[in-house]
């Protein structure tokens, strides 16, 4: 069993620019329906979720596999604790890596948002 960590920093200003230029198309290509509902146009929260997707790809040791951003989603329980939901290609990559646990932590403050993902891996391929 190996612990694998992924970290990412995303600019809320960059998210704001993407929203201004590409609008709904940007949101639909990057964020899950639940993320769009939870964040609406809050660029700090969106940036934190984008950071979580990238941190997850690092923790899963993605190489050149095609992973749509929407196949990694952040959910929050009633107490506001975040977790990751993997679907499609991201879930398949996690299976190949033998992921038994996946934890995420998010933060955003002013123009910056960051996320850390820790995965327990039993790498099989």
């Amino acid at each position, binding site marked *: 069993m190996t612990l694998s960590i992924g970290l990412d920093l*995303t600019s809320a200003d960059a998210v704001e620019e993407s929203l201004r230029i590409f609008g709904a198309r940007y949101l639909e*290509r990057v964020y899950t329906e639940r993320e769009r509902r939870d964040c609406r146009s809050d660029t700090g929260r969106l940036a934190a979720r984008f950071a979580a997707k*990238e941190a997850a790809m690092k923790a899963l040791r993605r190489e050149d596999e*095609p992973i749509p951003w929407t196949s990694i989603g952040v959910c929050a329980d009633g107490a506001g604790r975040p977790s990751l939901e993997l679907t499609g290609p991201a879930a398949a990559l996690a299976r190949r890596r033998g992921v038994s646990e996946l934890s995420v932590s998010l933060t955003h403050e002013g123009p910056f948002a960051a996320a850390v993902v820790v995965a327990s891996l039993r790498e099989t391929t």
Partner: protein
Amino acid sequence: MTGAMRIEIRRVLRDHARLPVDVDSLRDDADLFQLGMTSHASVNVMLALEDAFDIEFPDQMLKRSVFESVDGIARALDELESRAA
């Protein structure tokens, strides 16, 4: 891939990749991520390429090698064009 298309790819990179270097000076095989393009900027590049070339990148093309260089983007656009033909 025509010269005009490569010029258009470079225009998209200039407008959206947020690179700290002069896009016109880049080699076609230069690694854009190593030069400072963030993964978030690559989303803008993808969406702007879709607008510029009237295409949509399918999920199977959403990988690093497609967006890491002018050559990678050109190969992907060629493949999409041949699929549409």
